[in-house]
């Protein structure tokens, strides 16, 4: 059977929910958006306008959860890459908006650029475990006022998988809408296919940005799905206990979903989280810890508890550079949400607490994803896997290499063979120059970048997108 896990019991999930309802109603949530506060007040929440805090009663929570779709297909520019939510398996997203990139050619770390996004998206496109592209770096070479548009449009151009990104304020939304319609052909197609979605981060604890929320409410006109990614950190922006931090993250996720459901009932939303832990010795944020994995898994279960598509941050690392520390942290923060049933785990490609993009890491993370997938698949007990007859036939001292069952199941996925780990004999491996996970990943990146781009935008669409960006750069300067 499949590897099954349960982190929170039904009673414990109910407890998280009840504690969350208390937080929403008694502590309230701060919104820098008057639109959001108006929506809440009109639906029965008490609003302290001076403090910008809404005290959200349980009725509003129930109402919002009743209109949020329980399933939808996360579409893609190429429909072959569409991914139905919820999913029986976990797939992955590229980590997004890191500040830095490790230059693939010089090995030096520097601020991220538009070109880094393009390369990373092309590499990600080739990863079989990746379903959702988030622009991995903040493109520091583009103007701050239009930067998220450049990043979003880079997704349009460099992968035909589902794209998720952000805008920062209302004035950016018409350019995004124009870009989406240009790529998808019509507004109807944008609305029907859900090929692009928005990522939204509340500000922990229990706060919401104004301009970004207003922009996202506006984009409800295009029915763009929104993924909410609360990021409380144990001991600073959230309580020090995992349970307390889970409740804060849950309250932030629900308060986000409430706004987008009140504004546009039925708009697709995706439950998610990206919690962190505090290094109590120096105050550093950490996202690559076992505790982060546990919180991600528990919150994935909470998303499922609410009947929502449920995703998580994971495959995260605080290592300063790619290497064994990163692999350890990424493995542990992947397997937990995989076992928690997360639909999508967001974290491919970055180290340094989601701040440094490394192209080889995208490939390494895809491999970690395969290992986790194999664990999740568990032990198959279907008749062709029982094989007691073979054991009886051969008896003590037999050689199973001679059995047809061995040959027949060799390529069935029963045993996973890693294309990245080196399995030559010791002497061969030494003669080959000791290839390993990262050097093999590097070769794969070189090959992907040397090949023609997969699924490029047809005709003059890329040129039209550039025109929209040029217009935005000029008008929003």
């Amino acid at each position, binding site marked *: 059977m499949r590897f099954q896990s349960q982190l929170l019991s039904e009673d414990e999930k109910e407890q998280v929910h009840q504690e969350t309802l208390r937080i929403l109603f008694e502590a309230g949530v701060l919104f820098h958006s008057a639109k959001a506060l108006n929506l809440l007040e009109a639906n029965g929440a008490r609003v302290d306008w001076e403090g910008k805090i809404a005290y959200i009663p349980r009725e509003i929570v129930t109402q919002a959860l009743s209109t949020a779709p329980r399933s939808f297909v996360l579409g893609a520019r190429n429909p072959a890459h569409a991914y139905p939510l919820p999913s029986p398996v976990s797939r992955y997203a590229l980590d997004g908006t890191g500040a830095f990139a490790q230059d693939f050619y010089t090995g030096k770390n520097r601020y991220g650029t538009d070109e880094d996004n393009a390369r990373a998206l092309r590499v990600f496109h080739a990863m079989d475990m990746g379903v959702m592209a988030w622009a991995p770096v*903040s493109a*520091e070479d583009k103007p701050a006022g239009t930067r998220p548009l450049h990043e979003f449009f880079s997704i349009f151009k460099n992968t035909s998988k589902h794209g998720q990104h952000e805008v*920062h304020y209302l004035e950016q939304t018409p350019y995004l809408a124009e870009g989406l319609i240009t790529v998808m052909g019509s507004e109807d197609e944008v609305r029907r296919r859900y090929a692009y979605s928005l990522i939204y981060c509340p*500000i922990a604890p229990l706060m919401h940005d104004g301009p970004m929320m207003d922009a996202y409410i506006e984009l409800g006109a295009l029915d763009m799905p929104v993924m909410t990614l609360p990021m409380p950190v144990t001991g600073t922006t959230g309580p020090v206990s995992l349970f307390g931090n889970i409740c804060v993250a849950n309250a932030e996720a629900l308060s986000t979903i409430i706004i987008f459901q009140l504004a546009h009932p039925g708009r697709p939303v995706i439950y998610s989280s990206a919690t962190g832990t505090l290094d109590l010795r120096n*105050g550093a*944020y950490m996202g690559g810890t076992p505790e982060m994995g546990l919180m991600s898994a528990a919150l994935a279960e909470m998303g499922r508890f609410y009947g929502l598509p449920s995703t998580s941050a994971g495959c995260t690392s605080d290592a300063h550079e790619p290497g064994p520390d990163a692999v350890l942290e990424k493995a542990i923060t992947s397997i937990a949400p995989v076992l928690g049933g997360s639909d999508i785990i967001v974290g491919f490609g970055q180290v340094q607490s989601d*701040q440094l993009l490394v192209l080889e890491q995208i490939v390494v993370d895809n491999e970690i994803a395969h290992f986790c997938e194999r664990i999740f698949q568990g032990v198959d007990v279907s008749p062709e896997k029982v094989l007691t007859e073979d054991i009886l036939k051969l008896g003590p001292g037999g050689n199973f290499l001679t059995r047809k069952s061995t040959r027949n199941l060799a390529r069935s996925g029963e045993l996973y063979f890693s294309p990245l780990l080196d399995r030559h004999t010791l002497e061969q491996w030494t003669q080959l120059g000791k290839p390993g996970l990262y050097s093999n990943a590097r070769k794969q990146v070189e090959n992907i970048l040397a090949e023609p781009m997969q699924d490029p935008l047809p005709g003059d669409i890329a040129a039209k997108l550039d025109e929209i960006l040029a217009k935005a750069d000029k008008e929003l300067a």
Partner: protein
Amino acid sequence: MSEELLKAMAQSIIDGEAEVAMDLAKQAIEAGMNPLDAITKGYMPGVNEVGDSFACGNVFLPELVMAGEAMKAAIAVLEPELKKAGASREILGKVVLATVEGDIHEIGKSLVGTMLTAAGFEVYDLGVNVSAEKIIAKAEEVGADIVGLSALLTTTMVRQKEVIEAMDKKGLRKKTRVMVGGAPVTTDWVQRIEADGYSEDAVSAVHMAKNLIKGS
């Protein structure tokens, strides 16, 4: 002067007990203790001990923060008495702190404020989403030695540069040094925007601030 009282003051900081620290400050005033002695001979040894222990890894951040809060509480009681006596405690420098316009991330900046206050700086924390004009006006008003600018996002850290440019135009940089901080800030960025310094965490920020004061 009561040695016992002074020891209890230091201990209240080490224990991070703000209420105890305040009570002891009140007792000191009632007993006629020189408020400056209370600070320098009572509480400061506690602050120094916690700081040293933190540097060695024996004290965790929440303990350090609680110690800082206790120090702030004690100073709040003693400061008015100092003024009444026409005296003042030794201030290492005046610091105006803010998270830049467009950014509402607060905790890192507040932590720096607590650490600076505990170390003996006078801190004016303007909060989050603060415009360059407001920051500069405050710096001018109080005669700031240091302006500290926080930004968590790559899209808002450009505001740090704008504040520095505005300060340059006003000719404020000779008197007022600029420290910057936040996740995307690096030495490279500091050089590009011609800031005077940055640190990667709140404790190092205190060292940086002290160095900037020494160097000015």
